[in-house]
């Protein structure tokens, strides 16, 4: 698998506090490396799709797709491309040995029935009570498009959201309550952003890891709701290979 996360633009201006936000690939790398061996995971469309490229080679992690595939490998190329073997984003993929195919009701029974260990979704907003909004902005001409997001959000044992910490105009996306229509209520367990890893607990947001060079105060300003600090707070730094890491080794 390619590790293009090291190719991020060095032209990006550093913030005054001298931190470099995580790239989308770096966020994906962190998510990928937090899955335990044997995890069964669904990667939603958008940013979560990147996670497939960073799964650690020393763990067996099963990828499920809403169109009935369990055991997806990476993107297909050349003669391996079969237009009847695609992921949820309609990209041709390969099947791993051990893969299986089912029809649609079983694919969604896997999600809704609690059989997935992790569901990884993109997000517009997450509220401190775990509400997720990721399907419809509040604009008057917005056209509904739900897809599999609501099913993915209700059934998995752990729901992970990957998103930028703030919008392009610096509006916080972690909020006391979502202002956009909900995808599901009270479901999010953990949020991976370009600045931090935050757990959603019964008492609200708890900071698990913060990007190196960024102060908790600055992060709190970029967060729309109260941010508690974990006793075990760690720093996300880039190791000698340029890979983001945050756990004590």
């Amino acid at each position, binding site marked *: 698998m390619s590790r293009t996360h090291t190719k991020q633009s060095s032209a990006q201006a550093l913030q005054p506090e001298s931190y470099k936000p995580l790239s989308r690939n770096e966020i994906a790398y962190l998510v990928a490396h937090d899955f335990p061996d044997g995890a069964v995971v669904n990667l939603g469309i958008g940013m979560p799709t990147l996670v497939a490229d960073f799964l650690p080679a020393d763990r067996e992690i099963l990828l499920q797709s809403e169109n009935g595939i369990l055991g997806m490998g990476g993107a297909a190329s050349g003669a391996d491309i079969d237009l009847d073997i*695609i992921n949820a984003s309609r990209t041709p993929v390969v099947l791993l040995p051990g893969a299986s195919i089912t029809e649609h*009701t079983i694919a969604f029974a896997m999600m809704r029935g609690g059989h997935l260990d992790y569901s990884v979704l993109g997000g517009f907003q997450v509220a401190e009570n775990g509400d997720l909004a990721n399907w419809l902005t509040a604009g008057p001409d917005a056209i509904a*498009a739900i897809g*599999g997001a*609501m099913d993915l959000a209700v059934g998995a044992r752990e729901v992970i959201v990957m998103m930028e910490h703030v919008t392009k105009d610096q509006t916080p996306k972690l909020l006391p309550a979502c202002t956009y229509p909900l995808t599901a209520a009270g479901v999010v367990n953990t949020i991976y952003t370009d600045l931090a890893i935050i757990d959603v607990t019964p008492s609200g947001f708890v900071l698990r890891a913060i990007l190196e060079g960024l102060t908790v105060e600055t992060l709190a300003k970029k967060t729309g709701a109260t941010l508690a600090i974990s006793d075990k707070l760690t720093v996300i730094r880039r190791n000698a290979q340029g890979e983001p890491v945050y756990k004590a080794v």
Partner: protein
Amino acid sequence: MIDKIKHSLEDAIAPLQDGASIMVSGFGEAGIPFELLRAVLDKGLRDLTIISNNAGTHEVGIAGLIKAKRVRKIVCSHPRPINSETFLAAYRAGEVELECMPQGTLAERLRAAGSGLGPFFTPTGYGTLVAEGKEQRVIDGKGYILEQPLHGDFALVRAHLGDRWGNLTYRWAARNFGPVMCMAAKHSIVQVNRVVALGDLPPEQVMTPGIFVQAVVAVGGER
């Protein structure tokens, strides 16, 4: 003798009439019955309700019917993946109605219809706009909404192999909505890549038993 094989697309879709509700299989481009949809377009049918995961892409398939103003309403889970401009333009112009629901709810509503069940409680959509106007219930601390069976007059489905009893296999993930739509529709019409002799499909590997299928037509083009 049971012989569900039709010898042309026109024969296969002969029972369709203006105003019909039509389920259309497929996810992405896998499993979409493009040839049957083209025949529906050529037949000039109007005022159709289309039940499918998407609302068509580019200007073919469901999008071709929308562009020709043959579709009154789209019932789907995701009307705007990439290349959905045909639907979006028609929707903004008020030419087509939209009923959008979660994908798993779409699949399960079809299954309830095909299985003779009444409405069912699902947690999907509880606490969201999807729940508005629906009966809700909290059971053991978890919220559920009541969803209705989704019936339809016809299903147009793409499968891989089929026999004269209507038994089907599908290729890979082109299976998706095919089996549940064959169950749910009153009359299921299936295009296959190849018709095989009765007995050629191993009984344990049949993915849709013929009882759920009314017509099978070969379109060739086996991959």
